[in-house]
């Protein structure tokens, strides 16, 4: 990572920027980019809540350089790789140089004794704790050890003096792929182990690089963790369902679907709902921020969303190519519009993000009940899956009663 290469001589970022010759104009430009990210969703509805670039700039400039401990437990390093891909402006790097990342296995110089000493020292100071990876608690922690200690011990030691904890990626949020059925190592998320501190869940497998770095920058800017949804995810990146920000939404509303991959609909960028898109049940800013410096994103490259920002998506959203039940508005624009306004109203009213789901018309059929294959819609408990042949063959245009789910209550958990 570039930012660790930086030196930091001045007491504050403002002085440091001046010292290193960064133009304030460029810095402000970066800050308005940050503001855009923070405000990606709500700003559209409630622009007075958007954070002004100037405010961000002033706050950032007054910061001192905080210590970061960045753990990688039972995981694949994909989240670190995603962070490495974040952004691309010089000023962004400067801002990231706010941090002194004193333990980070993937990039740090020292191994063995030197690394363990660095960790011990950093743990004793107040620090921001970033965690990638799950904690396998089965069989006394034998499934992941670092420096001779179990992942659970490593996490507990690092959490003690942490001023903020960022669980970055599906594994640290809920256990990730290895926690999927039958979870052979009893993998757990950070929140299952650390109960006495607030945890920001930066969800995704991996999360978008810019979302990872912006979560840190948010903390530095505001001096507090971002506002979270009921799943502990920062609203600035997880307040919108992919379905609602999807550029292909108009095709959904118009009943224009990809029926098979590489068909004429696919070449025209039609909606991927029928080939299994989980966008209607997935909260993420993928369509807004996109991936790898706005190059593309999963749906943009023709593949249905697999819902990787939702808990237990490897169990709840599989088979991945199965059509989601319970998504209303098929081919009926008036209904879709109504749904859209319902969601909008709910958000403006400050009701929890999941509350808007009550507005959705449910369409799972009786045959679904007969099949009884579990699949979660909206990330909130079990629903029943329609017959696959029906899903790939005909449009789900026969709305019938669906089982009631907890999410329909619609209470805010804030």
């Amino acid at each position: 990572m570039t930012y660790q290469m930086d030196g930091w001589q001045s007491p504050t970022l403002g002085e440091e920027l001046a010292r290193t010759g960064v133009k304030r104009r460029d810095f402000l430009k970066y800050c308005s980019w940050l503001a855009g990210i923070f405000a990606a969703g709500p700003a559209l509805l409630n622009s007075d809540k958007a954070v002004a670039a100037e405010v961000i700039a002033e706050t950032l400039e007054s910061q001192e350089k905080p210590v970061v401990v960045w753990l990688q437990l039972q995981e694949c390093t994909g989240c670190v790789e995603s962070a490495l891909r974040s952004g691309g402006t010089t000023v962004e790097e400067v801002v990231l140089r706010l941090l002194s990342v004193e333990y980070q296995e993937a990039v740090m110089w020292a191994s063995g004794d030197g690394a363990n000493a660095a960790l011990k020292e950093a743990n004793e100071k107040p620090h921001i704790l970033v965690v990638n990876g799950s904690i396998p608690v089965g069989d006394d922690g034998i499934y992941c050890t670092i420096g001779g200690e179990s992942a659970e011990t490593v996490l507990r030691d690092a959490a003690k003096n942490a001023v903020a904890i960022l669980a970055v990626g599906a594994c640290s949020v809920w256990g990730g792929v290895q926690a999927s059925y039958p979870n052979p190592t009893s993998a757990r998320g950070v929140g299952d182990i650390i109960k006495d501190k607030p945890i920001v869940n930066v969800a995704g497998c991996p999360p978008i690089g810019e979302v990872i770095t912006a979560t840190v920058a948010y903390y530095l800017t505001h001096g507090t963790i971002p506002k979270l949804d009921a799943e502990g995810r920062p609203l600035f990146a997880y307040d919108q369902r992919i379905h609602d920000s999807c550029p292909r939404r108009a095709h959904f509303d118009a009943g224009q679907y990809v029926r098979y991959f590489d068909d004429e609909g696919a070449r025209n960028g039609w909606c991927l709902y029928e080939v299994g898109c989980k966008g209607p049940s997935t909260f993420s800013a993928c369509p807004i921020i996109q991936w790898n410096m706005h190059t593309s994103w999963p749906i943009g490259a023709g593949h249905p969303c697999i819902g990787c920002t939702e808990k237990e998506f490897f169990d709840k959203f599989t088979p991945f190519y199965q059509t989601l039940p319970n998504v209303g508005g098929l081919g009926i624009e008036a209904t879709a519009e109504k749904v859209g306004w319902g969601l909008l109203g709910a958000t403006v009213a400050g009701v929890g993000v999941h509350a808007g789901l009550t507005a959705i018309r449910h369409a799972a059929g009786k045959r679904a009940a007969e099949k009884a294959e579990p699949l979660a819609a909206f990330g909130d408990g079990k629903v029943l899956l329609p017959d696959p042949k029906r899903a790939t063959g005909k449009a789900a245009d026969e709305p019938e009663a669906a089982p009631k789910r907890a999410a329909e209550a619609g209470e805010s958990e804030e």
Partner: protein
Amino acid sequence: MAKIVVDPITRIEGHLRIELESEGGVILKDKAWSETTQFRGLETILQGRDPRDAWAFVGRICGVCTSVHAIASITAVENAIGSNVPTQAKNIRQIMLEAQEIQDHVIHFYHLHALDFVDPASAIEADPQAAVDFAKTIGSTWKGNTLERMTAVKDTVKALVESGQLSIFSGGYIGHPAYKLPPEANLMAVAHYLDALEFQRSMIRIVTTFGGKNPHPNFLVGGMACTIDPEHSESINQVQLDQVSKWIDETLEFVEGCYLPDALAIVGVYKEYFDIGASSPNFIATGLSGTAIGGNPKDAAIGENNFKPGVVYDMNLGGVEDFDADLVEEWATSAWYTYAGGDVGVKPLAGETVPTPAIVPRPPYAMSEEDAASGKKFLNESEQDKYTWCKAPRYNGKPVQVGPLARLIVGYARGHAEIKEIVDYALSTLGITAAQLNSTAGRALARCAESVISARELKNYTFPKFVAALQGGDIDVFDASKWDPETWAAQCSGYAFVEVARGNLSHWVNIENGKITNYQCVVPTTWLAGGRDAQGQIGPYEHSLAGDGKHPLVDPTKPVEVLRTIHSFDPCMSCAVHVLDADGVEVQAVVS
């Protein structure tokens, strides 16, 4: 004699612990133990699932060599169900594999391996102009070699060192006598470290264009989900082709102009490392990096520009043999599994192991002799102990090397023209023999040489092939005829070999009534990081450290020499751990 533990080995993927014994500044012969300390059981989790979903699960084996497990998975499933993948989908996958491999090699060299040879703190003593001049003398044509840039980087490093907040250099090896680069070379290297970050961030967009995101792009059994159509705005068209073409140009520019001269210069300064770190002299490769073969490589058609899968024994470049998948066996002698049939080698096709958590030592483990005196245990307390989650694959009964060096060795022995050209160039530039490539420096050099070959391949062959076919009207990227599981045989199985950044990767799948019943991966780092077998043969990592009793280790608390050698394999530990099914019986990979 002193028992030494290096845990964690940092700047790798995943969790690796090395135990060794040293005396008089060297590691004692046969006294190194490679210990994988993470297990996830991903293939267990695949039991009973839709084979078309498997790529998304196994793709998460690794986020560094991201894409490669997914491609191995879809290729194996396609082999099983008889899917006829369109040529253009295969072309796209090859573009993605080559781009991924180059990105992976660059990250490895600059961000994982370089700090074993570069002391960034020494850069503050450098004259920035001398760094520019140094770059010129080593043949670097990189656009970042300017006085302005070198000065800025020097100021950055200076500020860091003087601030006392060392960030990722905390606990590092500043001033360690094993670091030999002059200050101007260190400054240049730090500048290129930063440039390489920018580079990888930019060029990885090649993968994003087709896969929608990176890490963990999306794939599809039967082809690709990204449509290609010159006449549609929502498909990949000339707009994306122009961008990809530009990023490929950037890639070749960086790899040839920056990475190659840097790597040659560093291994030139540390030339003694061509005589350190020799590992198993046997090598397997099933083609150039980016080669994906469904089914048995023995019977596969050889792609244009590629070489025939092969095996080289005892570094004998004149005697390459054909690769035979039936000669792969895995041992659990040193791994925490137990075979019902005793301590024997088992073919992946008939794999069978009971994991035995009861025999795994409980953490915390001893990190030093003092710890041991207070009752904590090392993982190998005695020669009889099992000490790792990583099994030990053997080819024809022998430990083998896989990876960039193995591909160059086998390709060289097969007479592949581009490989011969760059290997001969490197050998004559450095004044070393081909046999010396089996070494710590040789593996680092091979990785770089291969990046150059792949970048040229991507620019001159793979991408033009894709574009030419598109111009010819070939826009088909998906075989829908085998999408519905009802079109599959009630029982079918398949496998695939893919050459990826770290070496030869194979996935094996057995399907019954549309669901996965068995899934197995034989992974590059498993080949390399596995431990001892029943014959007492040590694994390739262990061999590289303790093969001859001469590997240096001057200061056990700062084991720079060990890191140089272990990093030369580019360890990926999350890939290496093995397979269990839900009942704790190792998955059997069945081949039709």
